[in-house]
């Protein structure tokens, strides 16, 4: 009996300890990142803005096409699906409300975050992981260069700035999809759709969406960097960590989304 209890506890205990260790180290990496953003610059160790811009171009500019096309399609799909349900009531004009609100509050930030996890979060893990395996991280340290300041901070800042920006583009192009569908297939005039959208959307919808996307940016950057730094054992390890970074990021993004949506919902 006691043995079974013991086994049960150890089965429960090991993953818990694992999770706690990871959480502790992740927290340390987060603190270190914040220190290099908010404290060290005042001690004369500047943020590498050139690097921030390079990374911003990668994560932001170069992601516009894919984010744009996907959100345009999703807007189109949402419009068709809501029109299907609204038609029997003769209420197809409410497509504008449904699409614009669910995009700005929910799907814009979420879709963008998931695309960027695949495009950039995984790249962060793979790059830092490869550098770890090739002793490049150690080489940085022996030159007196801090890997967090050198590698993590630029990617972190680029994400924090670019993910909300991409989210706005996604919101806009999603609504554009719904707009094109509505004026061509639903006999809704252009001006009516636009008016309806403007009346339906309040600033709060967009802002809550952007707050979410800021949180998602933190998740993508931290998990990507963390998975990169814990890589062990060559190319295989890099592959494993890269995959992990995507799975864990998406899981945490959705979890955070639930929490924030509930929060915004209850304080509405």
């Amino acid at each position, binding site marked *: 009996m006691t043995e079974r209890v013991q086994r049960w506890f150890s089965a429960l205990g090991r993953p818990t300890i694992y999770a706690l260790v990871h959480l502790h180290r992740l927290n340390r990496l987060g603190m270190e990142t914040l220190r290099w953003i908010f404290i060290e610059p005042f001690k004369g160790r500047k943020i590498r803005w050139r690097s921030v811009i390079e990374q911003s171009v990668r994560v932001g500019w170069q992601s516009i096409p894919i984010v744009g096309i996907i959100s345009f399609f999703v807007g189109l799909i949402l419009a068709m699906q809501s029109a299907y349900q609204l038609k029997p009531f003769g209420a197809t004009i409410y497509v504008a409300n449904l699409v614009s609100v669910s995009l700005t509050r929910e799907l814009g930030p979420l879709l963008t975050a998931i695309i960027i996890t695949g495009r950039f979060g995984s790249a962060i893990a793979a790059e830092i992981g490869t550098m770890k395996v*090739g002793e490049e991280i*150690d080489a940085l340290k*022996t*030159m007196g260069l801090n890997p967090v300041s050198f590698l993590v901070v630029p990617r972190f800042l680029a994400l924090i700035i670019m993910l909300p920006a991409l989210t706005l583009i996604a919101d806009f192009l999603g609504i554009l999809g719904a707009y094109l569908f509505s004026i061509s297939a639903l006999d809704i005039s252009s001006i009516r759709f636009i008016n309806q959208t403007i009346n339906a959307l309040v600033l709060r919808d967009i802002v809550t969406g952007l707050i979410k996307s800021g949180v998602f940016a933190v998740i993508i950057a931290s998990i990507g960097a963390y998975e990169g730094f814990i890589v062990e054992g060559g190319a295989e390890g890099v592959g494993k960590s890269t995959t992990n970074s995507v799975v864990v990021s998406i899981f945490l993004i959705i979890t955070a989304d639930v929490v924030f949506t509930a929060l915004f919902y209850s304080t509405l």
Partner: protein
Amino acid sequence: MEKEAIIQVRDLVTYYGNRQILKGVNLDIYRGEILVILGRSGCGKSTLLRHLIGLMKPSRGQILIKGRDITTMNEDEMREILKKIGMLFQGAALFNSMTVGENVALPLREHTQLEDSTIQIMTRIKLDLVGLAGFENFKPSQLSGGMKKRAGLARALAMDPEILFCDEPSAGLDPVVAMGIDQLILKLKNAFKMTIVVVTHELASVFTIADRIAMLHEGEIIFQGTAEEIQNSKHPIVQQFLNREADDVEPDREKYLHSLVKS
């Protein structure tokens, strides 16, 4: 003339998990000498080097560099020390996303206020020194193993260090290229009065470059002395190492010569 110990290792003990890797290492390294740390692979040579350059903190013991203990230093103090130390990694550890020139220039860009044009000139001088003139714009992936090591060396030399650590500089290279690297190390010592610590398990290069040899065995220093002294050492493990390695090296040489003749 009194010899000045620029690096002093005192009772250094370290663990990986529960396994004790270094078991109380004591070692003095004198200014301007080439010290070779010799030992079988897996005996803890790289681990010792990683401690000397501050990548790892020991469980116990001290490492004094110019009299100051680096094991208790904070990041800012350590950064100043590191500016005067260069390290050549076993796999060269070049930044693969940068060109060779950018690799060498990086420490200068980060630690000095020099003009871009000056940095470029200095980079070229360092590459010239290691025989890689004209390779600035190559990516590390376009270089051979020996050239990578040379580029790694150029980067280690960028800040004109007083101390240079080399982890198995000639491992994995053919004997001719390896000899070239050894010559380079000798040149650095003679021309720049650098203190150089070389880790290796290859006897061929040991006797070419070493002023002094320290032999590490299972985490302990079992021998310290000159090349002559090590050959006269009665220590059974030292003897065994010298003979075994000699046996290992010869067939390689033969094979290499054969391949030269054939081609």
